[in-house]
C-alpha cells in the first residue's frame, strides 16, 4: 500500500539578484523540479543528494511545512498543507539541526508534555517510552535538562520524542549529523530495529552514506531538484559499473598471462605476490578464488565491496 506519493512535485523560490548598482532582478529558482515518488508502507527510503539538491525542501513539502508550487502530494492519504494538523498526528519528524524538546526541562518532562500535545492515551505512551528507553538507553539522562545533554544523547531524545505518538511515517533529516561514531551506531541500530518491525515507514535524508548502506534497501538520489536514481543500492552499482574487488596475497608470484572468466586483473604488486582482480557483476568470488588457487598458492584473501561513496560522487559530477 502506498503511503507517500508525489507526482510532478515542484517548488520554486524567487531570489533577488543584484543587477547593477541599485537594481535588483528577481529570478525564479526551482529547488525541487518535478519529483515523482511512491513509497510503500513499511519501506525504508534513503533520500540523498549534494547540498542544495532540494532534499530538505522536499521533506518540508511532504510534512506540510511548505506548500508545493506545483504537483500532487499525498501522505497517509492526506494533503500535507491543507490537512497539516491531522497529518502531524500520524507522522514523526526529526530534524538533525533543530530540536523539538524543551531546552530547560528534563527529557522526561518534554516527553510528558508531548503526550498531551499529541493526545496519546497514557498506556500507549508508557509502552512506547519503555521501548525507547530500553533500545536507546535513555535512563542515564532522563532527568537531565535538555540543554545539558550531549548531541548524541539529545538525538536519542529527539528520536523518542518523534515516536511517542506512534507515527506511521518517520521523516529524518540528517539524523546522524555531528554525532560521534558510537552515537551514530546507536542511532542506526535503533532505526534498523524500528524498520525491521515494518510498522513504520522511514524516509531518511543524509550525507552519511553509511546510514543508507546500513538501513535502506531503496535509494533515491536527487540533484538539482530532480531524481537521478531511484532503486536499490545494487542497481545503482550495476548502473554505474562499480565492481567488487578481490585482493589476494600469494606465496609464489602469479604466472604471467593468468586469466579467468568473469574477472579482470587490475594490478599485480610486490613482484607478483599480491594481485587485485575486479569481478564482473553476478560472478561469485568462489570460482575466481578457485582458479587463482590453481595458479599459485594462496596465503590471504579479501573481498572489498564497492564503496557507495565513489558511485554517488560520480553521480553528482555527471
Amino acid at each position, binding site marked *: 500500500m502506498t503511503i507517500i506519493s508525489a507526482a510532478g512535485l515542484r517548488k520554486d523560490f524567487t531570489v533577488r539578484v543584484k543587477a547593477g548598482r541599485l537594481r535588483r532582478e528577481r529570478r525564479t529558482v526551482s529547488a525541487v523540479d518535478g519529483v515523482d515518488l511512491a513509497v510503500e508502507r513499511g519501506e525504508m527510503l534513503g533520500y540523498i543528494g549534494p547540498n542544495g539538491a532540494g532534499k530538505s525542501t522536499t521533506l518540508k513539502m511532504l510534512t506540510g511545512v511548505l506548500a508545493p508550487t506545483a504537483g500532487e502530494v499525498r501522505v497517509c492519504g492526506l494533503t500535507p498543507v491543507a490537512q497539516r494538523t491531522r497529518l502531524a498526528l500520524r507522522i514523526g519528524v526529526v530534524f538533525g539541526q533543530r530540536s523539538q524538546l*524543551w531546552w*530547560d526541562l528534563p527529557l522526561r518532562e518534554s516527553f510528558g508534555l508531548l503526550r498531551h*500535545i499529541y493526545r496519546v492515551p497514557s498506556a500507549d505512551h508508557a509502552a512506547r517510552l519503555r521501548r525507547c528507553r530500553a533500545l536507546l538507553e535513555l535512563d542515564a539522562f532522563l532527568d537531565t535538562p535538555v540543554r545539558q545533554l550531549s548531541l548524541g544523547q539529545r538525538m536519542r531524545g529527539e528520536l523518542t520524542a518523534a515516536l511517542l505518538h506512534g507515527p506511521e511515517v518517520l521523516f529524518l533529516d540528517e539524523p546522524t549529523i555531528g554525532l560521534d561514531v558510537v552515537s551514530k551506531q546507536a542511532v542506526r541500530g535503533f532505526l534498523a530495529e524500528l524498520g525491521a518491525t515494518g510498522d513504520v515507514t522511514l524516509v531518511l535524508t543524509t550525507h552519511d552514506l553509511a546510514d543508507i548502506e546500513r538501513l535502506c534497501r531503496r535509494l533515491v538520489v536527487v540533484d538539482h531538484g530532480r531524481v537521478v536514481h531511484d532503486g536499490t543500492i545494487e542497481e545503482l552499482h550495476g548502473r554505474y559499473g562499480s565492481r567488487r574487488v578481490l585482493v589476494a596475497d600469494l606465496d609464489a608470484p602469479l604466472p604471467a598471462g593468468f586469466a579467468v572468466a568473469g574477472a579482470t586483473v587490475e594490478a599485480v604488486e610486490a613482484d607478483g605476490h599480491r594481485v587485485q582482480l575486479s569481478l564482473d557483476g553476478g560472478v561469485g568470488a568462489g570460482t575466481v578464488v578457485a582458479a587463482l588457487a590453481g595458479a599459485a598458492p594462496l596465503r590471504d584473501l579479501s573481498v572489498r565491496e564497492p564503496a557507495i561513496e565513489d558511485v554517488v560522487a560520480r553521480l553528482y559530477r555527471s
Partner: protein
Amino acid sequence: MARAYWALFAGQFRSVTAYRASFAVELFSNLGVIVFDVLAVLVLFSVTRTLGGFTVREVLVMVSLTACTFALADLAVGNIERVKTYVRSGRLDTVLLRPLGALPQLLLMDMPLKKVSRSLFALAVLAVALHLAGVTWTPARAALLAATVAGAVTFFGAFFVAGASVAFWWVESGELANSVTYGGREFAGYPVPVFEGWFRNTFAYGLGFAFVGYHPALALLGRADPLGLPAWSGWAAPLVALPAAGAAAAVWRLGIRHYRSTGS
C-alpha cells in the same frame, strides 16, 4: 485540545521557573514601566493644573487604564514579536510540524511570564486611580470596565500580532510596526484634546486608539467629551477590538501562507 495547549503553557512555566532567582529579578524589574507612566503624569502636572481640561486624577485613570490593558495584552501576545527570530532560525518549521495551530503555539510556548507582575501592578494602580478619582460604581460602570479591559486587551493584542506578521515578508522588520503599537499606547493614555490635526484624527479615530482609553475613561468618570462625541463612544472598545482582531488574524494568515510559499 485544551489539554494540549495547557501542556505548552506548563512547559513554558516550568522552563522559566527553572531559573528561580533570575525569574524573581525579572518579575521585579518589570514593574519599572508602570512606575514611569505614573511619574510622567505627576511631572506633567507639576507644571500645569489641567491637561486638555482634565485634572491629574482623571488623567491618572486614563493612563493607568491604558497601562493596565497594554500590559495584559503584552503578557498574552507581546512575545509574538519573536516570530522574526523563529523565521530566521527555522524554528517555525518545528511549530508547523505539531498538531496544533501555529499562532496559539507560539503564544503559549513563549509567554513572557515575567510580565505577570507588571500586569498585576498595573491593575493595582488602576484600582487606586479609580478610587482617587471618586468613581461612583454602578452595575453599568462595572460592566463597562470589564468590557473595556477585554476590548482594549484584544485591540492592543491585534496590533502586536499584525506588527509581528510583517516578519513573514521582511525578516529585518518590526521597527515601523512597533512605532505604531507603542506610539498608540502612549497616545491612548492621554486625553484626546491634547493632540491636534491629522495626528489626532489618525491615531484617535482612524486607528481607534481613542476608544480603548480616553472615551471609556470619560464614561467611567461620568464626563462628556469636550470634542462632542456622544456618550455611547465610551462603550466602543469592543467595537473597535473586533475589526482589529479580524484584520490581525487575516494578516497573520496571509503571512503564514507567504512563509509556506517562500520558506525562510
